[in-house]
C-alpha cells in the first residue's frame, strides 16, 4: 500500500467508520467531540499527504476496488487536478471539524447531524477521487443525500422542510443531467472509465450537448443563476459548520466536476462553449450580489454571495475555455489559474464568514441582522475575524480575494486578441459585470458588518451576547491567517496551481512566481502588470503606524469620551439607527427597480392623525417568479390531467395498452 490514492481511500474508509461510530454511540454525550476530533484528525492527515503529493509533483496514482458494477469495478485516481480539489475539501473539512468541536456543543439533536457529517466528508472525497462515471455518480449522490440530511437536521422548522424539498428536487435534476452527460460520453460501447472516455472524445455535436448538460448538472450544484434557487434556502438551513462546508467546499466539488468533464474528458473545446459559460457566469456574479444586498438574514446573505463568487470562478473558467479554443494557451493558463485561485480563496473566506455567522447565532440566537448591532464590543475576536473575511470577499488589497480578481482582470485584458466577434462583445461586458459585482460586494459587506457589529444593540439578545469558545475562535483565526498569507504572498500559491493548470492547458502554465524579486506576482511581463501584496501590506502598515506615532508624539494624544454628537440632536433609541434595509435602499432604488421590479409603497396617515406611516417594499424575484413558478405550475397541471388516467374503466385501460403497443411497433417499423 504505497501509492497515495490507496492511503487516501483508507482515510475515506476511516471517515465512513467515524459515521458508523456516530450511529452506534449516538446516545453517548461525548460522541460529538469524538466524531469531530476524528474528522479533524483524518482530514488533517489527508491535507498533509496531499500537500506532499502536490509539492513533489507526484505522478498519477490509481487503484481499483472490486466494488460497484461487476465488469468495471470502482476506479480511483489521483492526479494534479484531483489533488488540488481534495486539498480544498480536506482543508475545509479539517477546519470545519475544529470549529465544530466548540460549536457542535450547542447542537440539540446531535444524532441527526454527526453520522451525516462524517459521511458527507467521505462523499466529497470520493467524488474527487472517482475515475469512472459510475463511481463518480454514486459518490455524487452520497454527497447530495448526506448534505440533504444535514439541511433537514432541524426538520421542525417549516422553512427548513421547504428548503429540503427544493434541494432534493434540484439535486435530482442536476444528477439526472450529469447521468445523461456521462451516458453520452460513454458512447454506444458503454465505456464508463474516464481513461476510455479520454481516449475516445465525442464528436462536436455530442460534445456541445455534453457541455450544456455538465453546465446544468454541475452548475445547479455550484449555484449558477438560474439554477441557484435551492442554494440560499438550503445552505443556511444546515448547522453553521455544515453551511460553511456546503458553501465553501461542496460548490468547489461541483466546479471540480465541471472542470473534469469539460477540460479533461471532452477533448478540444469549440469557440461557442466559452460564450455560453461567460454569459451565465457574468449574470450569476451580478445577480448573486444583488440578491445578497436585499437580504437581512445573515446566513442567507452569505449563501447568495456564494452564488456571486461561483460566477466569478466561472468567468475565469469561461475565459480559459475561450483561450484554449483558439490555441492561446499562455493566456488560457492565466485565466484558469485565476479561476482556480479564486476557488481556493472562496473556500477560505466563505468558511470564515459562515463560522462568524455561526458564532453570532450562538451568541444571540438570531439570524436576522435587524436584531443585532454593537457586537464588536461584546465579541471582539469574532468581529475581527469577520472583518478580515468581509474585506477579503470584497476583493480589497492586501487580502486574498483581491489577488484572484486581479488575475481575472488581467486575463480579461488579454482577450482582444480573440478572433471571434461574439467574444469581442461579450468579454468586455463580462469585465464590466465583474467590476460591478466587486463594488456591490463591498457595499454588501459594509452593510453586513456595519449592521451586525457596529452601532448600538437593536435587541436584548445583542446586548447580552458573549464571545464564543476557543475552538471556534481558533478555527476562525486559522482562516484569517490564510486570508492574509495568500493575499500577501500569492506567488507560492500560484506555483502550487501550476501542475494543475499544466495538465489542463496542454502543458502550459503561468510563469514561475516564487522567484520573482520582492515576491511580486507578474502574470506576463513586468512592464505589463505586476502586483506585490507584501509591499502593499507593509506600506499601509508602516505609514499608518508612522502617522499614529508622529501625531501622538508631536501633536496630541488626549482623548475624551462624551455623548455622540449626531448634529446636536442625538436620540438614544437604537431604532433610530440605520437598519439593513435602509442601508440597502439607495442601491435597491438604482438596481432593484430594474432587476427585481421593486416597488415602494408609502402610506401616510392623514394630517392630524398620530398613527405611524408605513413603507412597504415589494420585490419580484425574476428567476423564481419568472421560471420556476410557471414550470412547477405546468408540471402540477399536467399531473392533474394525468390523474384522470387512474379512473379509467377496464376497457379503456386495455385500449390504452393496445394503442401504445401499436404506436411503438409503428415507430419501430418506420425506424428500421
Amino acid at each position, binding site marked *: 500500500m504505497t501509492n497515495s490514492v490507496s492511503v487516501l481511500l483508507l482515510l475515506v474508509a476511516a471517515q465512513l467508520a467515524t459515521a458508523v461510530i456516530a450511529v452506534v454511540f449516538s446516545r453517548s454525550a461525548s460522541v460529538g467531540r469524538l466524531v469531530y476530533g476524528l474528522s479533524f484528525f483524518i482530514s488533517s492527515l489527508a491535507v498533509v499527504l496531499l500537500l506532499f503529493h502536490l509539492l513533489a509533483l507526484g505522478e498519477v496514482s490509481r487503484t481499483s476496488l472490486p466494488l460497484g458494477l461487476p465488469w468495471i469495478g470502482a476506479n480511483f485516481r489521483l492526479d494534479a487536478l484531483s489533488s488540488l480539489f481534495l486539498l480544498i475539501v480536506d482543508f475545509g473539512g479539517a477546519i470545519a471539524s475544529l470549529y465544530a468541536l466548540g460549536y457542535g456543543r450547542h447542537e440539540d439533536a446531535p444524532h441527526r447531524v454527526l453520522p451525516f457529517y462524517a459521511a458527507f466528508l467521505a462523499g466529497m472525497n470520493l467524488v474527487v477521487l472517482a475515475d469512472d462515471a459510475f463511481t463518480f455518480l454514486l459518490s455524487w449522490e452520497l454527497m447530495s443525500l448526506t448534505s440533504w440530511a444535514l439541511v433537514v437536521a432541524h426538520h421542525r422548522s417549516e422553512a427548513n422542510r421547504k428548503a429540503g424539498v427544493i434541494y432534493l428536487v434540484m439535486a435530482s435534476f442536476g444528477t439526472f443531467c450529469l447521468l445523461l452527460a456521462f451516458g453520452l460520453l460513454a458512447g454506444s460501447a458503454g465505456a464508463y472509465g474516464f481513461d476510455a472516455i479520454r481516449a475516445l472524445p465525442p464528436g462536436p455535436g455530442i460534445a456541445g450537448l455534453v457541455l450544456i448538460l455538465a453546465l446544468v448538472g454541475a452548475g445547479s450544484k455550484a449555484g449558477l443563476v438560474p439554477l441557484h434557487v435551492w442554494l440560499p434556502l438550503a445552505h443556511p438551513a444546515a448547522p453553521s459548520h455544515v453551511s460553511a462546508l456546503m458553501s465553501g467546499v461542496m460548490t468547489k466539488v461541483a466546479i471540480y466536476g465541471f472542470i473534469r468533464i469539460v477540460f479533461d474528458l471532452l477533448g478540444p473545446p469549440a469557440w461557442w462553449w466559452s460564450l455560453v459559460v461567460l454569459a451565465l457566469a457574468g449574470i450569476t456574479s451580478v445577480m448573486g450580489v444583488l440578491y445578497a444586498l436585499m437580504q437581512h438574514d445573515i446566513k442567507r446573505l452569505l449563501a447568495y454571495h456564494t452564488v456571486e463568487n461561483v460566477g466569478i470562478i466561472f468567468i475565469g473558467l469561461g475565459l480559459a475555455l475561450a483561450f484554449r479554443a483558439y490555441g492561446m494557451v499562455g493566456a488560457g493558463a492565466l485565466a484558469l489559474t485565476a479561476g482556480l485561485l479564486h476557488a481556493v480563496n472562496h473556500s477560505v473566506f466563505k468558511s470564515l464568514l459562515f463560522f462568524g455567522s455561526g458564532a453570532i447565532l450562538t451568541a444571540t440566537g438570531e439570524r436576522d441582522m435587524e436584531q443585532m448591532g454593537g457586537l464588536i464590543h461584546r465579541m471582539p475576536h469574532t468581529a475581527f475575524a469577520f472583518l478580515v473575511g468581509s474585506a477579503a470577499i*470584497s476583493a480589497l488589497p492586501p487580502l486574498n480575494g483581491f489577488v484572484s480578481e486581479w488575475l481575472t482582470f488581467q486575463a480579461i485584458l488579454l482577450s482582444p486578441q480573440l478572433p471571434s466577434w461574439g467574444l469581442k462583445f461579450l468579454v468586455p461586458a463580462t469585465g464590466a459585470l465583474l467590476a460591478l459585482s466587486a463594488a456591490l460586494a*463591498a457595499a454588501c459587506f459594509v452593510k453586513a458588518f456595519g449592521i451586525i457589529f457596529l*452601532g*448600538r444593540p437593536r435587541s436584548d439578545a445583542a446586548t447580552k451576547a458573549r464571545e464564543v469558545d476557543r475552538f471556534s475562535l481558533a478555527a476562525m483565526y486559522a482562516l484569517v491567517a490564510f486570508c492574509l498569507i495568500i493575499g500577501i504572498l500569492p506567488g507560492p500559491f500560484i506555483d502550487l496551481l501550476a501542475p494543475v493548470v499544466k495538465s489542463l492547458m496542454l502543458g502550459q502554465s503561468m510563469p514561475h512566481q516564487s522567484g520573482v524579486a520582492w515576491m511580486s506576482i507578474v502574470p506576463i511581463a513586468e512592464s505589463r*502588470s*505586476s502586483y506585490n501584496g507584501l509591499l502593499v501590506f507593509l506600506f*499601509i502598515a508602516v505609514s499608518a503606524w508612522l502617522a499614529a506615532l508622529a501625531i501622538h508624539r508631536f501633536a*496630541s494624544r488626549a482623548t*475624551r469620551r462624551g455623548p455622540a454628537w449626531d448634529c446636536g440632536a442625538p436620540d438614544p433609541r437604537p431604532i433610530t439607527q440605520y437598519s439593513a434595509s435602509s442601508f440597502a435602499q439607495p442601491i435597491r432604488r438604482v438596481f432593484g427597480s430594474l432587476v427585481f421590479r421593486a416597488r415602494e409603497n408609502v402610506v401616510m396617515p392623514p394630517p392630524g392623525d398620530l398613527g405611524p406611516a408605513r413603507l412597504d417594499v415589494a420585490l419580484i424575484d425574476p428567476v423564481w417568479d419568472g421560471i420556476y413558478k410557471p414550470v412547477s405550475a405546468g408540471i402540477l397541471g399536467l399531473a392533474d390531467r394525468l390523474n384522470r388516467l387512474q379512473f379509467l374503466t377496464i376497457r379503456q385501460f386495455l385500449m390504452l395498452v393496445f394503442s401504445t403497443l401499436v404506436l411503438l411497433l409503428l415507430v419501430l417499423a418506420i425506424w428500421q
Partner: protein
Amino acid sequence: MAVIVDFAVQGAQMLLVLLLAPLLTGVVRKVKARLTLRRGASVFQPYRDLLRLMRKEVVLAENASWLFRAAPYLIFASTWVAAALVPTFAGGLVFSWTADLIAIISLLGFGRFFLALAGMDIGTSFGGIGSSREMMIASLAEPAMMLTVFSLALIAGSTQLSTVAAMMSSTEMGLRVSLGMALVALIMVAIAENARIPVDNPATHLELTMVHEAMVLEYSGRHLALIELAASLKLILYVSLIACIFVPWGIGAPGAGPLLYAVGAVAYFGKFMIGAFLLGLFETMVAKMRVFRVPDFLGAALMLGLLGTLLLFVSRSL
C-alpha cells in the same frame, strides 16, 4: 548609488503628494471664492486647519469601538500609498511595480470600506445615511473607473501606470475616440469619488443631501485631521492621474538627471494649478444635483467607459 537616487526620488514623490495635497484644496477654495467675488481664505488655510485639528483633543462617542479609532489611520495610509504610486514629476519609480492601476483603485476601495464602516460605528442616523449613499455611489463609480482603466490598458498594452504614461507621451499616440471617452468618464468618476459638486458638496454640513461629510460627522481632533488629509490626498491622486495619462509631457523618464526631474516638477506644478483652477471653475458653474440623479450621472460614465472598451475590442486603432 543608482539605487540610492531611485529611493530618494521615490521618497520625494511620497513627500511631495503629502505636502501638496492640502495646497490643492486651498487653491480650489480660493478659486471658487474669487469667482464668486469673495476674497476667500489664504491658500495655506488647509495647512493651518490640519495643524489646529491635530493639536486638539479627540472627543469620542461613548460607544465608539476600536474600529472607529483605527479607521482614520488606515484610511490615511491606504490613500497615501495609492497617491504615492501615481507618477507626478518622474516615471518608473522604484516601487511603481508594487501596484498597477487596478490595485490603486482597489486601495482607494480599501479606504472607502473603512470610512463607510466608521460612519456606522456610533450608530447615528447621519453616519448611516452617509455610508449607505457613499457605497451606492461607489458601486457605480468603481466599475466606471475600472472600465476606463480597461480602455487605457488596451491602448497601452499595460495596466502599469509608468508604462501607460510613457506610451501616452510617445509620438505614435494620436487622438482616439476611446481616449476621449475615457477622459470624460474619468473626470466624472473623479468628481463623484472626491465628493465634489454636483454629486456632493464638500462645504455643507447640515444638509440631508450630503454624503461624505455625514459619514465623518462624529470625528474630531487628530482623527478628523487625518480624514481631511486623506480626502485631499485622494483629490491630488485624481489630478495626478488625469495629468499623467492625458497630459504626460514633462514627466522625467526613469534615470533622468536632476535637471529633467526639476523640469518635471515645474511641469507638474503647472498641471496642478490648471487642474485646481478648472475644478474650481466647474464647481462654480454647476448646481448640486439630487442624490437620486447621481446614478444617472455615473451610469453615463459607466456607459462611456464600456463604449470605449468595446471600441478597442473591435479595433485597436479607434
